[in-house]
């Protein structure tokens, strides 16, 4: 992979479940140091696409290149450089925050895991509850822990599904700012799936809107707003979702 070349290059990506086409011939790139939003109504194909980007789901056809490697052939070469935070997957609730992070630091074979955990705990303000079991934390605290797990291997490709869903506005703003700084430091490509359009406008340089498994609109948030002659991205989304 050369400098500036896409971190992820998706071509003709299609997933069919029997007769139902969940994802239909997608083409898109994710660039380094760029946050890209994948938007769409429920059932539009976002989760299916993300699952395929992680190698959890095999595509029916098409290709996914990540860091210049073919995901289907070199999945385990790619995965150490990727991570995800999603409300659809949890961490073990009976383990403490520190135990969870320790397990994942080892799974990602992080050198000097203890120091990495300390840094993350300090950065994401986990120290107050780091030795508490996950089941005893508030939803907002759990979100921060999930993010800490997603950043444990300092991923160059980070997939975030509703990263600030359970956070109050101040915490959400703080997390967004933290992610922005992290991205600049690591040159990370971030793929964001969110229904919070304000968040997308604030965080993303590129937006793909999906409907019925296809990309129906793409551009910067401002380009999409201008092109559809709307006030904000939420109005664009609603218009596209209704058509």
């Amino acid at each position, binding site marked *: 992979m050369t400098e500036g070349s896409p971190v992820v290059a998706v071509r003709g990506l299609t*997933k069919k*479940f029997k007769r139902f086409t969940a994802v239909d011939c997608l083409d898109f790139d994710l660039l380094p140091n760029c946050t890209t939003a994948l938007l769409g109504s429920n059932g539009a194909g976002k*989760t*299916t696409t993300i*699952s395929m980007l*992680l*190698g*959890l*789901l*095999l595509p029916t056809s098409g290709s996914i290149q990540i860091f210049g490697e073919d995901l289907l052939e070199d999945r*385990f070469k790619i*995965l*150490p450089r*990727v*991570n*995800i935070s*999603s409300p*659809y*997957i*949890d*961490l*073990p*609730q*009976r*383990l*403490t925050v520190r*135990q969870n992070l*320790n*397990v*994942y*630091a*080892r*799974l*990602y*074979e992080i050198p000097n895991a203890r120091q990495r955990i300390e840094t993350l705990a300090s950065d994401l303000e986990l120290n107050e509850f780091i030795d508490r*079991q996950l089941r005893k934390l508030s939803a907002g605290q759990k979100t921060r822990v999930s993010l800490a*797990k997603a950043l444990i291997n300092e991923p160059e490709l980070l997939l975030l599904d509703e990263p600030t869903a359970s956070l109050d506005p101040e915490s959400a703003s703080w997390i967004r700012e933290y992610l922005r700084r992290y991205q600049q430091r690591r040159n990370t490509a971030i793929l964001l799936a969110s229904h919070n359009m304000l968040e997308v406008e604030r965080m993303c340089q590129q937006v793909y809107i999906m409907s019925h498994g296809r990309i129906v609109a793409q551009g910067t948030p401002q380009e999409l707003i201008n092109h559809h002659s709307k006030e904000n991205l939420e109005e664009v989304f609603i218009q596209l979702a209704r058509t």
Partner: protein
Amino acid sequence: MSLTRITALILRYIYLLRSSWPRVLEIIFWPTMQLITWGFISQHLIAESEWYQKAPALLITAVLLWDILFRSHINFALSFLEELWSRNLGNLFVSPLRPHEMLVSLTAISILRTMVGVIPACFIALPLFGLDIFGLGSPLLLFYLNLVFFGWCTGICVVAVLIRFGVAAESLAWLSIFLIAPLMAVYYPVDVLPTTLQNMAYCIPPAHVFEGLRELYLQQNFDTANLWRAAGLNLFYFFLSFFIFHVAYQSARRHGLLLNTSE
């Protein structure tokens, strides 16, 4: 294969055990209860049955070995179920942990949990029923290893079914080993079974193990043929269970089930 990743997952299960004393108690409780219950039944049978008078320790040893087989199987499946219950499977499958590394971790934790459960029961057998399990030496160890190995094979098959069908197939983890238990001839000789079932029994390793155990106790003869037949069959079932796991894993990836393993 990475030892760091394997130990990471083992550590995860040890953390879980440490966090929950009822889990540890449950591991120790059932083998001990089995031993005590069957120990007294066997004492009654020894008084009543000529067959058991020849080898009073046979029934208790059979009970313990059956429990070792059952524990190896269920502890393997239970550790995987913990991941399903905690909805952590997605995180594991997007990490660099390879499926075969996960199976090695499940095997290691199955050994640990089985040891924690069975060793206290073995020690209780001596003062309570005058049975020195360890006195049988290497033949018992070899029979034991064959049973543990078969427990892992059935455990791998259960994990394969859980990956493919999710938590809905949870009861299979408990049922499956009991479904084939009558063929294992734990408490009776294989020739008690109808001919068709006898043929089926000789296709699974535990039947050979328990036949060998009976010969060891009743004839004081260690028949290595039983041992080799069990080992050969185990090797076959080991490759078969890996094949089934691989098919289930690939099928789950085709159908998008690795993120969605709920009911």
